């Protein structure tokens, strides 16, 4: 599975949606993911890829990690996974 498919699978599970219904353009808000759900998703993604995502719920936009859409998250994860190697 590609990074994109794996991230979408995690987000879909959190949003209780079919992965097919999670589009790259969706924001987490569109998908009905709350701030607590976001923290859980980030944890699940970190576990899946063995990476650390710089994210503080008090200032979600302050870090370089963009969470504005599924596409932005996938891009961020790809970059963190690439840095790991």
């Amino acid at each position, binding site marked *: 599975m590609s990074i994109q498919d794996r991230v979408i699978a995690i987000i879909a599970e959190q949003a209780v949606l079919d992965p097919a219904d999670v589009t790259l353009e969706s924001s987490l808000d569109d998908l009905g993911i709350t701030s*607590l759900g976001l923290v859980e998703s*980030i*944890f699940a993604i970190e576990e899946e890829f063995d990476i*650390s995502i710089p*994210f*503080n*719920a*008090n200032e979600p936009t302050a870090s370089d990690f963009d969470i504005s859409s599924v596409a932005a998250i996938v891009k961020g994860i790809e970059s963190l996974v690439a840095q790991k190697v």
Partner: protein
Amino acid sequence: MKRVVITGAGTINALGHSVPETFEAMREGRCGIGPLEFRDVDRLAIRIGGQVRDFEAEGRFNRQQMTLYDRFTQFTLAAAQEAITQSGLEFQGDLAARSGVVLGTAGGGVSTWDDNYRAVYEEGKNRVHPFVVPKLMNNAAASHVSMEYNLKGPSFTVSTACASSNHAMAQAFAMVRSGMAPAMVTGGSESMLCFGGVKAWEGLRVMSKDACRPFSLNRNGMVQGEGAGVFVFEEYEHARARGAEILCEVIGYAMSSDAADIVMPSKQGAARAMAGALADARIDRSEVGYINAHGTGTAANDKTECAAVADVFGPQADKLMISSTKSMHGHLIGGTGAVELLACIMALRDGVIAPTIGYEEPDPECALDVVPNTAREARVEVALSNAFAFGGLNAVIALRRI
């Protein structure tokens, strides 16, 4: 209904090992938060906290006591000794039979859990010390205070996360006010600053890596603290008859439940608790001069709390002072309301308002007088102490100058 006064106060926290030391630090706006020091701290992303320094359990407690006292119990006993000594009370006869201990803690013996899990999971040991259970149980501190001071009345532990101490003190107040007990030892303590205790909080992603800056626009989360606050709540006539020094009067309280979200605070729940405390104390909102805020330094708490204050107090919200001393001693979780009650006592008795330190940028969503960075002299007649816990459980206490 009886009147209830505070005749003894004790504490140990990152600002000091006694009430006078803590008051001095609060007056000076000193920060007790610094780099954490304990085993495996290098495996944490969050490495700061309001840790109690130079507290030597050895010498203070004997070997047998040490095997039974988790750090949260040690803190409690240190604070209780200061409070009960100050009160001058000796619990004997009917006074002992009817007076008890109600204390708050969220985690109880967290470091005892931590140490023993490490022993059995990480080190593979198959045997633990026989006193692990009596050492870690949440009521251990209350029980040891009862044994140490011969308190034989109603005694128990309250655990409502960050509101534990306020719920405990509210309960103790209600017991004295109703005539059920002539005096109660109350407050709370917490000691979560160990690897597992901080790691758990880290997971929530609400912790700051650099400082606790309540109400400041650039705030980025909470910082944990540790310690204890213990008080003697006594029936007014009982205290007067023996010529006790009275620190202030406890005049009311309210508790409310948001019934909404397990972590996100609710403006309505907080407002109902504050308004309820005013109603219970039968005072007008215009009498309140100071609020010790819950003020955790998270994005969510501070703006919700300020909105709730604005709702309850209307135009008076702009006249009163509200500060968060968590900026100095950190968030003591289940012990926090007890240590923060000291700031209310200092405001009422000494006329000194503890500041919110670390305040750097005004936040339009927290547009109240937060007593930024520097303590202030002011005469205050009535003070409130707020605590709003995870789980949506709130408790507010009202106190009056005497």
